[in-house]
């Protein structure tokens, strides 16, 4: 019998420590996109809060905590990260399992912002992109989700198929920041 082994997108590529910055893979973790049905936005927010203790995120915001988080994920969409989605959510929104669809990494340490700033046009100044802020943006031509989880801690997501490119580009930026 064939024994299939589940591999994470960045297996064999991470972790990386360069200079003061560390790049690690996140997960595996459950990720579900929530897209409210027309007119069901308020009902969905109520169920999300009751079932998972997480507030529906406004645009460019992330709510919750490690283990149960909601990231604003685009127009009329949020990504529930952590828990398996409560069945009641499905009455208010279209749910899609995204768990295997993304490469997810965390960039931490002093200088993490300088590394990221080399790859995305987002305004990452600390007073503009604060803890709890998230954005869909461009990361070296990849459509990314970038969330600031702490002073020097960012969660970065791109489509799974770009995992190697993501690590390659982040590594190059980390090396250049470290060389300064």
């Amino acid at each position, binding site marked *: 019998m064939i024994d299939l082994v589940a591999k994470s997108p960045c297996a064999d590529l991470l972790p990386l420590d360069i200079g003061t910055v560390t790049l690690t893979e996140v997960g595996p973790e459950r990720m579900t996109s929530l897209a409210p049905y027309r007119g069901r936005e308020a009902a969905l927010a109520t169920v999300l809060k009751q079932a998972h203790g997480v507030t529906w995120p406004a645009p460019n915001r992330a709510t919750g905590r490690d283990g149960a988080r909601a990231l604003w994920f685009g127009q009329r969409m949020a990504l529930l990260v952590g828990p398996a989605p409560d069945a009641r959510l499905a009455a208010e929104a279209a749910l899609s399992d995204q768990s295997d669809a993304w490469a997810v990494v965390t960039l931490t340490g002093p200088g993490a912002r300088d590394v990221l700033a080399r790859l995305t046009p987002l*305004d990452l100044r600390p007073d503009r992109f604060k803890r709890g802020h998230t954005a*869909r943006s461009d990361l070296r031509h990849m459509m*990314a989700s970038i969330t600031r989880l702490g002073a020097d801690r960012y969660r970065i997501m791109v489509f799974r198929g770009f995992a190697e490119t993501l690590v390659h580009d982040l590594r190059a930026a980390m090396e250049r920041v470290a060389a300064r």
Partner: protein
Amino acid sequence: MRITCPICGARDRREFYYMGAAVALDRPVPEADAAAWNAYIHERDNPAGLTRDLWYHEAGCGAWLVVTRDTISHEVHGVTLASDMRAGG
């Protein structure tokens, strides 16, 4: 160039895909005559000055935007959600 998405805020042009003149907002009815459809499909102005384009916030929220801008000064005068314009008639 920066475009202020009504949802995401001011963002770099790299996040957006340019669609062209915002003619899709004025699509002729199916029964319209050949001249109307010809104009809709083929005829475009090339204004020096104010123009109205459709942009797609491809790397951002995924919204279609109507951007009013000046092709001489490159100034952006306004950005609205295309879905709002359609809802408004």
